[in-house]
């Protein structure tokens, strides 16, 4: 039984305080899973394989031991070889053009208004419907996305922001010990001003990021412990606070 459920069950006045939004789904602390990494093939000659950011194109640098750095001129040459190889494999495409079209395409497409229902992608897979690509570069990693993709991405993002909103209103879930939660001083994340970071925080005597201030608040007014940078709770809080300032111009360093 969690600390909170004990509190609710006993309804003891003191303990019950920990439940910020009692009927909100229970959120547990968790680390973010590691990000996916490209699988670089082993070197055949005992050298080092260098891969392009498409995760497919690679060249072998003979004689370069793992951990060694190439001279600048050689690195430039390797980069040239990677691009040349990509061009051979995509004879009708231009790298810069693909990038440009991708960006134009993205900005000209209004985001779909309603978030897609969870599992929408699974449904599409099950029906075997071939997604309509938004990009002109069929098969290109950087242009193959559909309306459905947009919806899934937006849905994921909104869910993460919503998760952050719940942490923002639940001091106990952040490890706070005295009943204080973020929203008590910052309703709707007001007066957090994420758009002004990084900035020199006089009281800390260092340049602070938004997360430094989040941690400061957790440690001091909430009387908890600073969160690991990869802690979902910290990441979700950042997401919520930033989402509340959508459209506000970035103005780092502002006091």
């Amino acid at each position: 039984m969690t600390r909170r459920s004990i509190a609710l069950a006993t309804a003891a006045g003191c303990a019950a305080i920990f439940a910020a939004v009692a009927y909100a789904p229970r959120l547990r602390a968790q680390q973010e899973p590691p990000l996916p990494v490209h699988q670089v093939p082993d070197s055949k000659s005992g050298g080092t394989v260098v891969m392009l950011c498409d995760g497919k194109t690679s060249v072998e640098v003979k004689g370069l031991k793992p951990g060694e750095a190439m001279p600048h001129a050689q690195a430039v040459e390797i980069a040239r070889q990677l691009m040349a190889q990509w061009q051979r494999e995509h004879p009708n495409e231009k790298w810069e053009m693909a990038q440009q079209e991708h960006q134009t395409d993205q900005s000209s497409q209004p985001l779909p208004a309603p978030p897609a229902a969870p599992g929408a992608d699974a449904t599409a897979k099950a029906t075997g419907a071939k997604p309509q690509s938004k990009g002109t570069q069929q098969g290109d990693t950087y242009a193959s996305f559909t309306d459905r993709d947009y919806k899934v991405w937006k849905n994921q993002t909104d869910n993460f922001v919503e998760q952050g909103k719940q942490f923002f209103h639940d001091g106990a879930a952040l490890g706070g010990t005295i009943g204080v939660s973020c929203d008590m001083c910052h309703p709707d994340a007001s007066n957090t001003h994420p758009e002004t970071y990084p900035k020199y925080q006089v009281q800390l005597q260092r340049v602070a990021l938004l997360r430094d201030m989040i941690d400061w608040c957790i440690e001091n007014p909430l009387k908890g412990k600073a969160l690991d940078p990869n802690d979902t709770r910290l990441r979700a809080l950042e997401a919520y606070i930033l989402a509340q300032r959508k459209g506000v111009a970035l103005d780092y360093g502002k006091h």
Partner: protein
Amino acid sequence: MAARHKSVETKFMEDRDAVLRGLRGLDRRTFLKVLAATTGAVMAKSLMPPHSFQLIEVANAAPDKTASAAGMAGKPPFTFAYVSDTHLYQRTLNQRFVRAAVKAVDDVNALDPQPDFVLFGGDLAQLGQREELDLGMQILAELKAPVKMMVGEHDWFYDLGDAWQEMFGPPNYSFDWKGVHVVVLMSVHEKDFWTARKMTPLQRMHTVAGLDNGIQSRFEVGDDERKWLAADLAKVPHTTPLLVFSHSPLYKYYRNWNFWTDDAEQVQAILKPYQHVTVIHGHTHQMLYNQIGNISFYGLLSTAWPWPYAPTGLPPLTIQMNRADPFDQFDGLGDGRINVRADGLADKIYSLWDRNPVTVKADYLVSHGKIARPPAPQFPSY
């Protein structure tokens, strides 16, 4: 994290406190001489804007001669103090808010002369628990002056006022004080949002306790209490100054945070025939003042935490306080007092902890900002 560091402002306030501590024990004549010299010296160093040292003005604020000159006199002036929005959890859980409430009580007890009474502006408890209210009652019992209680939504929505009323009596009442008619309202009724959602009392309390929780209803005085108010005022002549206490502001500032009373216009209409009406409210945790027709509004400071100004709806007469330093628990908080003048209008003194006190004169509001403008802080609120 780097070692604790004092901000420029905090350092300045400490220096100033040290100077003022040194002044204690001097007789008044010497005090004034030293103060003048110190002010001059500090200003010469450009450490502060010229309006900062206000203690003389505050010290002499109570007796008001302008009222008798204007022929409106007749009532003896009086002073009352306030403590508001302590938001106490149980002592075992949260010492931070207890410390702050005790600090406010100490402040008020140190006033000499003592105020006629102390208004408690509501939100004594954080979650309406009996233990929280008990703790609050114990702390307020230390006050030397009599206490007038007002209820806030944090005191009310766990048991819909059972414990609070048992301890402190009816939430709305009135009395006459030195020629002024004083009304205490219960302005934080909410239409039932909990039954349909099958909420427990604690869920209901948590919902109301969240400022940005859109599920709850808006505050209102309500039909019954407005009728009570009209009946109460029926016997009061329109020339009698009115002093009205309400937890929520009796006007519409920002709906989303319930800085708002839904039937504010109807309550204002009841108060409209009176020459001088002052409404003192809690809930908003910031320096806030407003004038609507004949009614002057003052918001009280909290002792627990400050709130930023709402994104919209700020009354144009309000001069925003500088945003609070999050590294200083007491910054942006405090208590205060109200000097009711001989003509029944009220000057208001924000006794900000760790900052200079700020006086908001009645003349500033009733003139709609034409005279007696209070000093603006050195920095904008943001």
